[in-house]
């Protein structure tokens, strides 16, 4: 009875420690996306390099692709950019850029300066498509499967780790299915 009285506060303390530990070690910026496993919101947007032409989600049906949300004003886009350039060289998966709330000239100049890893970039000048896709922290990267379902979302800059351990294996398995 006496030992029980000592153990109970200890157990309560340990439970609190576990909860706080789990709570503090999670990044509050990473809000789980409600889109995982759901159809990608459709868009049909003007291309950055060819304002006369459009590209839509319907055009990408049947292949696995990435949507990378970027902007010339976005500082951490510079951090992930070399990884995207490398990914484009490897030519494993088409990456579509969503130029989010940017000026066309600024976006084009940025790509000219830093290299253009995108199959195509489309223009979302007023951020409406961004809202449809639940974008809140640029850069963001989505993996879309052949059926047009969103399978993964990376919030914030891509890292070599995320690319090697999550995105590329996922892309490969989706391409084979």
């Amino acid at each position, binding site marked *: 009875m006496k030992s029980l009285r000592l153990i109970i506060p200890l157990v309560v303390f340990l439970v609190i420690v576990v909860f706080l530990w789990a709570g503090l070690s999670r990044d509050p910026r990473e809000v789980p996306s409600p889109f995982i496993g759901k159809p990608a919101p459709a868009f049909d947007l003007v291309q950055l390099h060819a304002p006369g032409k459009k590209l839509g989600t319907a055009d990408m049906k049947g292949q696995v692709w990435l949507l990378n949300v970027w902007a010339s004003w976005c500082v951490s886009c510079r951090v992930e950019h070399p990884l995207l350039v490398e990914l484009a060289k490897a030519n494993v998966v088409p990456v579509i850029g969503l130029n989010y709330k940017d000026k066309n000239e600024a976006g084009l100049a940025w790509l000219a300066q830093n290299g253009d890893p995108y199959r195509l970039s489309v223009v979302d000048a007023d951020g409406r498509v961004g809202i449809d896709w639940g974008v*809140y922290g640029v850069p963001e990267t989505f993996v879309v499967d052949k059926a047009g379902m969103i399978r993964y979302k990376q919030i914030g800059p891509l890292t070599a780790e995320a690319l090697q351990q999550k995105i590329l294996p996922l892309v490969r398995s989706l391409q084979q299915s």
Partner: protein
Amino acid sequence: MKRLFAAVLLAVASNVIADAALDARLRKLEEELRCLVCQNQSLADSSAGLADDLRREVRALAVAGKSDEEIKQFLVARYGDFVLYNPPVKSTTWLLWFGPFVLLAGGAVVWWAVGRRRSRKRSDDDDDDFRPPGGAPTPEQAVEKARELLDNPLD
């Protein structure tokens, strides 16, 4: 002319009143929504670019005749329950909603158990203090003992 002026004035005034009502409604709604960029601010308070866009979107939906609930659904579909400062009651949030009451009930049980144990212990102690060896005296014995003491003062 006068009549026309009055009609214009009335139209403007009713517009202003309708706008004010919409503003008040949106303000209240936006205070219940979280800004995703600066997460401890509501959509109403945030000056982030995305908050501006979302306020514009929310206003457009309201003007299009959507109810508050439909507007919330629009945002939840895109950003998840996290945009709501008032989380919905569902199986994953049961702990959040009912946990405090469970803790309160647990506390009440502990309080009651400790109180009961203490009062039982005290009454046990009382008995110990006043029970003479060989069991409690009967009333007759007690009276007898008192008489004895009165008759034979100790000094």
